[in-house]
């Protein structure tokens, strides 16, 4: 058993935990922006998506550092098993256990996203819903174990992260755009949205220039392959 007695490991654990919480807040918010189809004018939609992906990598890196330093540090008796299996830690059994649940959920979301091009999209989406639960458990873990998160600035950070993601979740649930949300009055799906909308949707500022390739729907239908 590696026992390292430097206090900096413990400081690193605390700092990276806080930074990972902030980063996962940003990742969840950006993911909500992608899902609610923000962007397309000033910032491209794909740019928000790319930022969501890149930041999730950074967040996972901080999370891994957070867990590595916790396990390596001899100040708290938390072993390798406790990082994955809940309720196995001698130190703060319940709170670290919730953190293990959060890590498992985030790991599932992360691995499924790495395999995104190889697995069915519906599978990926199903696993991706668990990121909300992963964030919630991570937040509870941060509040329960955090040395800094129950008073002062740390509490402000944790409460802000909770508030931001709660707003994102509500927006995701209630503000979710239907398919073809109000693009045109001809769309049958636009009626429910248009009834609640105060102002009609303005047309796009610059209509796309006509291109030489044929745009007949009949031809594109014929070209479509099976999946």
């Amino acid at each position, binding site marked *: 058993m590696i026992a390292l007695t430097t206090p900096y490991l413990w400081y690193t654990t605390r700092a990276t935990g806080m930074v990972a919480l902030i980063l996962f807040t940003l990742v969840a918010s950006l993911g909500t922006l992608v899902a609610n189809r923000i962007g397309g004018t000033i910032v*491209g939609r794909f740019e928000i998506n790319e930022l969501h992906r890149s930041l999730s990598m950074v967040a996972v890196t901080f999370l891994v550092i957070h867990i590595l330093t916790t396990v390596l540090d001899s100040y708290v008796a938390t072993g390798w098993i406790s990082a994955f299996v809940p309720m196995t830690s001698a130190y703060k059994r319940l709170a670290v256990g919730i953190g293990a649940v959060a890590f498992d959920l985030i790991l599932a979301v992360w691995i499924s996203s790495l395999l995104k091009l190889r697995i069915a999209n519906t599978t990926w989406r199903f696993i991706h819903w668990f990121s909300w639960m992963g964030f919630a458990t991570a937040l509870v873990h941060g509040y329960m174990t955090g040395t800094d998160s129950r008073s002062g600035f740390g509490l402000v950070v944790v409460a802000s992260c909770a508030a931001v993601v709660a707003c994102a979740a509500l927006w995701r649930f209630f503000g979710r755009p239907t398919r073809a949300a109000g693009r045109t009055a*001809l769309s049958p799906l636009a009626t429910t949205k248009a009834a609640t909308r105060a102002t009609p949707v303005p047309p796009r500022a610059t209509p796309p220039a006509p291109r030489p390739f044929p745009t007949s729907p009949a031809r594109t239908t014929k070209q*479509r392959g099976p999946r």
Partner: protein
Amino acid sequence: MGVRRRSGSFVLRVNPILCDGFGHCAELAPELVQTDEWGYPILRSEPVPLTDAGVFESARYAERGCPRQALHIHRISEKKPQ
């Protein structure tokens, strides 16, 4: 392999059941994708030669960037079309 990949051509295809009209493909590959009034893609139907590296790169970005994975690149070899 690199040589063989450059012979032939490709078309971008969409699975219309998976597509939800996010519009990422039209941003990532404007050479190949237009959107209709509802935000769904209209794809360029004639094959693009693989020697057109810029367009092929755009197509790969669009394939990777689709939130529903509804796009895929269909390669057409030179010897046996389709």
